[in-house]
């Protein structure tokens, strides 16, 4: 049996599909419940009750929303570019899914444990802008178009600082492999020695996922709903799922780069009893909670403030920090001699 799965082509294909399902099914369930959790957490923060009608504590609300969205009619505007209009939500959704191929959930547990894992994540997250840009253009609506343009500028700007933060982490690891990045944090999680970079990365992740306080691409006070103003039913649902799956992905990246991935806080007995995937899930959930907390707390940035923060604050700051990290590692002789892995 093991021979069939590991050494024949058909077996490997089946194995890969099963591995992908093992990651994606919990992810999609998580996305469904994240929408509920967001409403519940924000309700609690604002002294409301949130959804509480469907099922106990409203736990069936996510499915009620899904059924509603699936059964509605997909309206395509008359002047829209039909193919691209429908292509954009699929692109957003599938990009949010394929990125999970490289996320390690335990030592060596990844669908694809590739050498350039972090570059793959960076590449996939930099593609996310196309879904939004194409949606904005194909809708043939000025609000959608403005939202798409804003989003393109915003995501490209914040990718720069995300890239530099990742470079400073990689300097300390000496490998582009996500598994190695987590293993390098056995002694201390990177969020402690690189605390400022942790904060910069988290805020850039908020901007990259178009979350509050950087949700200008869909700023309803100026752009109605931004790039997805013309979308309805399942196409809208795919955007929605993709956006929340991206939040999961960014939380996963924060956990892997700075919070030690599947590693327990300290490697002693009561903590090591809990299996690695549960630690990773706990860290991702913590990051998601902070995403929601930020949304419930901060007012939206103005567009020039957003650009100023990205280019005039984060870019120089992360650049200086990267040089400092490299200098410190070189001076103390801690620079990892990569290349063998």
């Amino acid at each position, binding site marked *: 049996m093991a021979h069939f799965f590991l050494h024949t*082509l058909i077996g490997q294909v089946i194995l890969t599909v099963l591995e992908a399902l093992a990651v994606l099914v919990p992810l999609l369930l998580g996305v469904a419940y994240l929408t509920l959790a967001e409403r519940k957490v924000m309700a609690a923060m604002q002294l409301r009750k949130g959804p509480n009608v469907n099922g106990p504590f409203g736990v069936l609300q996510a499915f009620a929303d899904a059924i509603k969205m699936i059964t509605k009619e997909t309206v395509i505007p008359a002047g829209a570019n039909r193919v*691209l209009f429908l292509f954009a939500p699929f692109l957003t959704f599938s990009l949010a899914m394929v990125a999970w191929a490289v996320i390690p959930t335990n030592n060596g547990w990844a669908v694809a444990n*590739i*050498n*350039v894992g972090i*570059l*793959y994540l*960076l*590449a996939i997250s*930099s*593609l996310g*802008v*196309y879904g939004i*840009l*194409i949606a904005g*253009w194909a809708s043939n609506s000025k609000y959608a*178009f403005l939202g*798409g*343009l804003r989003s*393109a*500028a915003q995501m*490209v700007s914040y*990718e720069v600082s995300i890239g530099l933060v990742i470079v400073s982490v990689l300097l300390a690891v000496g490998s*582009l492999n996500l598994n190695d990045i987590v293993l390098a944090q056995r002694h201390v999680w990177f969020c402690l020695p690189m605390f400022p970079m942790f904060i910069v990365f988290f805020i850039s992740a908020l901007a990259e996922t178009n979350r509050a306080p950087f949700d200008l691409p869909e700023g309803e006070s100026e752009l109605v709903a931004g790039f997805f103003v013309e979308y309805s039913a399942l196409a809208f649902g795919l955007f929605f799922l993709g956006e929340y799956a991206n939040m999961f992905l960014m939380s996963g990246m924060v956990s892997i780069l700075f919070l030690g991935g599947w590693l327990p806080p300290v490697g002693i007995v009561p903590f090591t009893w809990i299996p690695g995937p549960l630690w990773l899930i706990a860290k991702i959930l913590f990051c998601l909670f902070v995403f929601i907390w930020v949304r419930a707390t901060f007012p939206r940035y103005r567009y*020039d*403030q957003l650009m*100023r923060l990205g280019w005039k604050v984060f870019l120089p700051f992360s650049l200086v920090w990267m040089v400092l990290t490299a200098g410190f590692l070189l001076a103390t002789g801690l620079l990892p001699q*990569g*290349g*063998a*892995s």
Partner: protein
Amino acid sequence: MTQIVFYVFATVLVLSAGMVVSARNPVHSVLFLILAFFNAAGLFLVAGAEFLAMILVIVYVGAVAVLFLFVVMMLDVRFTQMREGLQRYAPFGAAVGGVLFAELALAFGHWRIAENIADVPHLVPSPGRTNTAALGDVLYTHYVFPFEACGIVLLVAMIGAIVLTLRERPMGRRQNIDRQHERTAAASVEMMALPLGQGVTELGGFRRPDKSYYVASVPGSYGVTAEAVPQAAPAGDDRHGGLGQ
């Protein structure tokens, strides 16, 4: 198996490259260009150069093509208008393309690999080394000077482009974040005691911002030239400190 994958990527790459130049809609052209980049990255992956594949996607698809798309969407290029000049420009285009093609053919026909390539230790692939590490070694250890020089040249080009397009726009109102943070309620809000029923009608129905300050800092913004200002605002009376630079 690898051959099938190669031919799939190669076919899609060539077809989409053809569509880039033949698509009627410029936005479609850029999208086909992105598809072409993608398939080129796929070809790199097939060749075992995973680092180059990822960098191709990050740099070209993730950044360069986004800006292309951005500009093409904004500019509203009409290919039908551009086609009107086709007859006139076709000979020039053909000449330039022909020269380029001839030079390429010449270069390719006389392409030789240096004889002592096997003696250069850092250019020989060694097992157990990822190609990321090998590339980094070659670029940053053995050829660090030419590499950094390339970086400087690109930086100069970028600064040149910025300098050429940077315009001072005196009409715009910029926010000075530090001054904004220094504002206090006492310096910004003025409580006025007005007699009942009179209000601010004498001032034209509403209170303008401190006229002298605005006109002095942003000439022409309130329809008043700088010369017409009665006097400059006293230094201590910066009531609207947050706006204007």
